[in-house]
């Protein structure tokens, strides 16, 4: 049985004039001088950015659609058009039923109002009648666990409570179509788990969900289908697992070594990253059962005090598996000007598969360098028939054995 559509998007494009997005807030003086300029030169050149270009898709009632893509790919603009916060430059989007959105945690919350008042305010924003909000109050309070503080202004809430209440409100109010943007990126693990659980419930309740996230694992779990946006266009559309895999491998040829151009004026810079097998040769295809090393070349011009270096390894789906920090090692530092060659040895614990190596350099207060995808590696080897795991420890098993009769005797039943 095919279900009717709840969302239809037909060749939607959205253009931002660079002068408009931020420069739209101008003063009169600017307005006068730029219209003078326009008079003189005929037309003032203004840059335009197409945030979305000819995007079309549909979402059936009760379906969950994932949206993935890099920052600036147009995901947020798409949600803003679906929610009608902004209108498309051309094309049309249609939604059926009440559209609820959680584009940012605490959207529509006012710090001076109490938790209860904010719940009502948010219901009213959704266009819900007061009575149905009252009906949902208990559920919201229970999910968020802020019962004792319901009549306290939310400005006194801890950030965790604030977050829980905000999510609870968005996920429990009566929206037929729920649009969620990256809210699960914040909050502790327990909260994220409950949110994902609640999202799955929402789906089961037959509501339509559009879910934008960088957490590709949760996209695969929650959304049967996904679209992949890049530079405002739909690159691929299909089953989530497939789309996510294509997204992750795209533009990521395996790289065993990368050299970076000098950045003028930077106190320190990343010069090179490379991976090496046990024989010392740099390679992007490594054996899973042997240790490998990641070499990082850092040129220090001006010493940055207590500077730390982190080598991270994540799976193609964005699960951070390892984060090895220089500060874990007390006898190594980069507190002298010059070229530092750091080598970190990764023991053979990772399962076969594709991995992405990231490099972060910075202090407690500042990121100096952050390259999420410095290298892409492939580890070859035997999965042992269990391809779902990330870590393959080969942990030690031991047994002690005694025959049944001996056992009984030991217990004194002989």
């Amino acid at each position, binding site marked *: 049985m095919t279900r009717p559509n*709840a969302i*239809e998007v037909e060749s939607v494009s959205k253009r*931002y004039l660079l002068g*408009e*997005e931020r420069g*739209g*807030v*101008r*003063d*009169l*003086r600017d*307005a006068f001088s730029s219209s003078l300029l326009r008079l003189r030169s005929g037309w003032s050149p203004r840059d335009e950015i197409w945030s979305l270009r000819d995007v079309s898709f549909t979402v059936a*009632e009760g379906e969950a659609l994932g949206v993935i893509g890099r920052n600036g790919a147009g995901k947020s603009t798409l949600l*803003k*058009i*679906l*929610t*009608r*916060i*902004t*209108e*498309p*430059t*051309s*094309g*049309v*989007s*249609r*939604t*059926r*039923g*009440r*559209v609820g*959105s959680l*584009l*940012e945690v605490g*959207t*529509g919350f*006012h710090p*001076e*109002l109490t938790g209860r*008042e904010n719940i*009502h*305010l948010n219901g*009213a*924003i959704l*266009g*819900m*009648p*007061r009575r149905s909000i009252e009906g949902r109050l208990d559920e919201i309070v229970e999910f968020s666990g802020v019962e004792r503080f319901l009549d306290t*202004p939310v400005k006194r809430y801890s950030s965790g409570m604030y977050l829980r209440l905000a999510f609870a409100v968005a996920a429990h109010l009566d929206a*037929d179509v729920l649009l969620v943007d990256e809210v699960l990126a914040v909050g502790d693990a327990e909260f994220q788990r409950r949110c994902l659980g609640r999202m799955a419930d929402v789906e089961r309740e*037959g509501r339509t969900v559009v879910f934008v996230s960088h957490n590709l694992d949760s996209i695969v779990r929650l959304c049967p289908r996904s679209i992949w946006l890049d530079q405002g266009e739909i690159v691929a559309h299909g089953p989530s697992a497939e789309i996510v895999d294509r997204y992750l491998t795209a533009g990521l040829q395996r790289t065993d070594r990368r050299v970076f151009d000098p950045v003028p004026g930077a106190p320190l810079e990343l010069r090179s990253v490379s991976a090496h097998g046990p024989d010392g040769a740099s390679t992007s295809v490594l054996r899973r059962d042997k240790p490998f090393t990641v070499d990082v070349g850092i040129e220090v011009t001006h010493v940055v005090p207590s500077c730390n270096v982190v080598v991270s390894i994540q799976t193609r789906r964005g699960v951070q598996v390892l984060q090895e920090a220089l500060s874990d090692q007390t006898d190594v530092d980069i507190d002298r000007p010059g070229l530092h060659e750091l080598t970190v040895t990764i023991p053979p614990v990772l399962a076969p598969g594709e991995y992405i190596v990231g490099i972060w350099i910075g202090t407690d207060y500042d990121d100096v360098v952050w390259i999420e995808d410095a290298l892409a590696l492939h580890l070859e080897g035997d999965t042992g028939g269990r391809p779902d795991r990330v870590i393959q420890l080969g942990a030690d098993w031991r047994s002690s054995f005694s025959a049944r009769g001996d056992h009984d005797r030991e217990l004194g039943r002989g």
Partner: protein
Amino acid sequence: MIEDERWVENRATNGRRGIDVGELRRYRELIWYLAQRDLKVRYKQALLGGVWAVAQPLAGAAIFTVVFSRLANVSSGSTPYLLFAFAGFALWTYFTTAVNQARSSLISNASLITKVYFPRLVAPLASVLPGLVDLGVALGVLAALSAALGSTPGAAIVLAPVALVFTMLAALGAGTLLAALTVRYRDLQQVFTVVLQLWLFASPVAYPSALVEGSWRWIYRINPLAGTLDVWRWSLLDAPRPGPETLVSALTSLLLLAVGLAVFQRNERRFADMI
């Protein structure tokens, strides 16, 4: 299952978008909540709360009593000047508060406007309401002052709500117009502060409109507040009955409202991109 089977469309309007009255009705609770919110926030933070509602017009009336009544000898006819000025100031204070709140309603609700959808007109509509509470308090004080000074309203008191409604419409008109413009040109706020000061003296707040005579009477009432203030005082203080020229003010109030709403609607869909 989705109960409401209607499709809601979002397509380029290029500013050609009428006011969807049905939609505004569905969002009336939001108007109410936003108004309540502004009121609560204001009174929670202010130590003196309602006292300010009275202090502002009272201080204005007191200063004007000294300057206009004592020094400049402006006559308010049979009405005691203090009552005359206080009644005028109460309505004027409501008007400026409402215009200012409506003008900044988009910017002060920026976090909502860029994150959720609602008809944008909800914001200025909600912001002309909280000032009514202050006006109500001021009217209570006016009643007490009137009783003390032996002034009683006549039958025209039934027209007080009409004067108030026209004030609200003019405030909404000016507020929506300025709201749409200040999103684009933030420094309009400074310009408007000056305009408001001039407007005060162009309105019969401190002096009776009877001072303007001849054919100027008609031109003077292009100011929407001119006629409205006359009706207001006629109804509350039994001041002289305003003449037919009052209709000019009624018309310009409606015109201001129409222009304000038109400019607001024309820019409505772009607010989220510009704020």
